[in-house]
């Protein structure tokens, strides 16, 4: 996994997690993975604008994970 992708994740994660509907930010092979509560377009648009502005060319994979809760 490229080091620069790790640093992109580290730099952008707090701002991505602040977007309503984003539940997580991770890495998978050569992509940034953004975990979403649901299928709405709003969060995707805001994520896309942020990543494009701050780290152009970064490939983003969206994963609808639902909201995360402790499991008991």
């Amino acid at each position, binding site marked *: 996994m490229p080091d620069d992708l790790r640093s992109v994740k580290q730099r952008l994660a707090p701002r991505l997690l602040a977007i309503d509907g984003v539940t997580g930010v991770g890495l998978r092979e050569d992509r940034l993975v953004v975990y979403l509560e649901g299928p709405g377009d709003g969060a995707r648009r805001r994520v896309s604008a942020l990543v494009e502005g701050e780290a152009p060319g970064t490939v983003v994979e969206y994963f609808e994970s*639902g909201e995360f809760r402790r*499991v*008991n």
Partner: protein
Amino acid sequence: MKRHEIPHELNTAKHTAISRYLSDRTAAMARAPWARSAHPARNLLGVGIGHKITKGKVTAKPCVRLYLEHKIDRALIPRDLLLPPNIGDVETDVIETGVLRALAVPAGRKRQRPLRPGCSIGFRFADDEAGNLMAGTLGAIVEGDGVRYLLSNNHVLANENRLPVGAIIFQPGPLDGGGAADDRVATLTRFVELTADAPNAVDCALAAVDEATAVRATVLPRVGRLAGAEPVDAAVGMKVEKTGRATGYTTGTVHDVSADVQVLFDLGKLTFQDQVVIDGDDGPFCDGGDSGSLVVDQGTGRATGLLFGGGRVGIVNHLGDVLTRLAVKLVV
């Protein structure tokens, strides 16, 4: 159609079917295991009321439903054993259900002596939370400074930082009927504090095993005995398994090993950095009550994570981080 709205003639037809086919169950008991009987007394398992299903579609026509263990081609059934197309003026509909069985209580929710990872554990709520019931999962038996501990999550053993050291841990957890004096198995010893003010890395705690409590490190079926005490680092694509108190044995695939996620706790929405994300192979990897389950790499048979959260996927701490923060080693 609600229960109190069922017309009288439908109820009458249903009760006719019950008295005709379900009242003599002795014949059903006598069947050989390899045989399939067309006899209604042996094949009919239930009678109900609903809308008739024709060519796979639910119609508006009310009917009496006849639930069969096996649907058998009408041409193969002796004429005197055929179920009627009508009972009085009400049509019948035959639905195949397979054998109906009582849902068994998962092994992990029962009392386990010796204690084994995968079983139900928990604490009793106190003060303004008294009356609530909880249960989580025992992840592993670990050791440090010659003391044996139960390893699980902070929120399973320490109620999200709120329980004092020395709090009593029960097996099974109170939600599964534990809480009596002889269900006591351990006492809360230490935990890594959960915080809403900064990112977290782990959700973990230890409870020292009572002298009188027998423990065995082998995880409940089908995970079994770990191949070694050293954890293995999770990797994307790794096939994993766990046994938990709620969903029992499940398998999954590692989707991510460095996810920063927000997880809902009583303390609020907590951020966890560099977590493992696991996608269930055949349905959900976990559910409420599985917190604390040990996640094991199927390839090496060694442990890789400690489950604590989830949505449509499981969220897991790296086990190496957990063991380092608590300064303990796995017992195998």
